[in-house]
């Protein structure tokens, strides 16, 4: 899952980026409010972690702007401002979660997973399509009860498709979900990962819509 981290403090930003990466997120880190807004408008992030005391543009302003622009990305506000009125205001102007520093890295990751899941209308942490069960927290996939070994990219790709069932996702969209900035993407990387997923989980799971992209249909097929 690709998320945006907006944090001006170098030590915290560095730590969060490294820590969330360890927990399976792809993290883009920006240090000011202007960049945060720009990135959120430009890329389809699964979620954003937003500090409020950002230079150039306050986190609250960023939130107001992107919500006004109709951007529904799940936003977790991570701040040292703990006053109840601040929390209320943050949630009211469009934050999906409000967490006061310091925060446990694992808790932050769990909250992000929950935000992403809810944003896709999934009531449960574990995603299930037919016989395939994906556990985002454990980063494990089972097919008919048996564990399937997937690479990190394959897992992320399957995760994105399972969160967006019944939607056609283009190769570019998938790339944006899977790769953070500066990561070199080979032109046929997505095709390779799809091929591997079909090999490991059955060829009927993911369908190709020729000329458009890929779709993971929810309806059980005969």
């Amino acid at each position, binding site marked *: 899952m690709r998320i945006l981290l907006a944090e*001006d*403090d170098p030590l915290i930003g*560095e730590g969060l980026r*490294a820590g969330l990466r360890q927990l399976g997120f792809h993290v883009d880190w920006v240090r000011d409010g202007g960049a945060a807004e720009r990135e959120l408008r430009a890329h389809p992030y699964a979620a954003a972690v937003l500090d409020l005391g950002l230079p150039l543009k306050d986190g609250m302003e960023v939130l107001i702007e992107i919500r006004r622009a109709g951007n529904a990305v799940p936003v977790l506000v991570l701040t040292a401002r703990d006053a109840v009125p601040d929390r209320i205001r943050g949630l009211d102007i469009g934050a999906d979660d409000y967490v006061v520093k*310091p925060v*446990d*890295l694992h808790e932050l990751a769990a909250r992000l997973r929950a935000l992403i899941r809810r944003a896709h209308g999934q009531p449960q942490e574990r995603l299930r399509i037919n016989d395939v069960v994906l556990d985002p927290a454990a980063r494990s996939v089972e097919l008919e009860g048996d564990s399937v070994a997937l690479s990190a990219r394959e897992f992320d790709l399957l995760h994105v498709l399972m969160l967006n069932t019944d939607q056609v996702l283009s190769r570019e969209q998938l790339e944006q979900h899977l790769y953070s900035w500066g990561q070199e993407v080979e032109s046929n990387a997505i095709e390779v990962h799809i091929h591997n997923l079909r090999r490991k989980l059955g060829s009927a799971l993911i369908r190709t819509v020729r000329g458009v992209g890929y779709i993971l249909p929810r309806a059980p097929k005969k």
Partner: protein
Amino acid sequence: MNQRQLYSLQGRLITLILAVVASVWLVTAAMTWFDARHELDELLDSHLAQAAALLVVQQAHEIDGDGEGVDAPSLHRYAPKVTFQVFHEGRLALRSANAPAVPLVERDKGFKTGFATVQIGGVTWRVFATHGGERDVQVYVGEQASSRASILWAVLRSTMWPIGLALPLLAIAVWWAVYQGVAPMRRLGRALAERPAQALHPVKLEGIASEMVPMVNALNGLFERIGTLLESERRFTADAAHELRTPIAAIRVQAQVALGEADDALRRGALQRTLDACDRATRLVEQLLTLARLEANATPTMAEIDLRALVQQVVAELAPKAIGKNQSLEFEATESCNLPGSEALLAVLARNLVDNALRYSPQFARVRVGVQQHSGRVVLIVEDSGPGLAEADARRLGERFFRVPGSSESGSGLGWSIVRRIAAVHQLEIEVDRSAELGGLAVRVSGRCGHQAV
């Protein structure tokens, strides 16, 4: 408080007023007594003298012969209160019915005209003695002294009894008046007693006596000072708690990253950053403590400080940091005078300024520190070739925990608060400007010279 040592203002007032009224009453009575007695004596003595004169004249004209002693008839029941005797050539010629046969005033030392007070048969008489022109006629006229006393008492009674009667009424009236008079005090007492313990709003001045205004003003002043103190304390605690979160969050995140990192080099990096975050927290706590001590308003011990030596020392301490960042740190001082102040605090001020200049200037920047003397003022100048400050940011310098946006350095945001506070304690002036020579920030701190450097 010792309850027994308390007294009632009202009781005290009533007692004092009644004591004064009673004293005035007693003095009035005494004066009436003496005055009335004096006037009465004058009047009645003149009557005695008049009566004696009549008798002398009468004796000279009518009782010319050697008549036997004649007793004048008693004509009225009051007559026994007065008496008279007329002697002609040593013999009793005429007397009132109640007069003795011997002269009213003993003549053992010879006859004397004038007034005398004598005791006859247990009764006190006021007697006037006189004689005729040829000294053969001697007349005594007497009057019972008790009748004078009774007149005096009658006068005194009639003037004193209305006041005597009025005294209890007066006591009640005084009690009521005093009770009403101290009502504002009771109201204030009640109002104060009813205030919640934490209430710090001022006591209202309306409806209180002018004598109480200084008291209430002093009280309100106290409330205000306590309120300001509490408010600053509260803000400080809130700010401090808020600011401590950031380094603690950094420590926690970096520690968790280190825990979760499999790669050895990466783990070491995360651990190193954990230590950096700890250093930052330490620095923040130190700054907070410095500020707290400054805000506690403890008056620092003032001495004559050689600013040049002090700043030189600070620059020497910070030189390694500059070298670590490949910055050039210079110190130059012209002749300088002493500055009255606290050595420790002035060192903190200088260290903060120089440290800020190094911290917020990039690598290879120049930082120049100078101490100069201009027209009776000693000036500390810290200039750098860093990015300087936007005007809006310059204005916000010194706000607690304000950090210039976008600065990647992890400052506490307290340095300027501390600098400003120390400057205020020492009555120093601070100017923030753009350095003409180096292009970055120029901070000028100036203060009036103390005694000339020896």
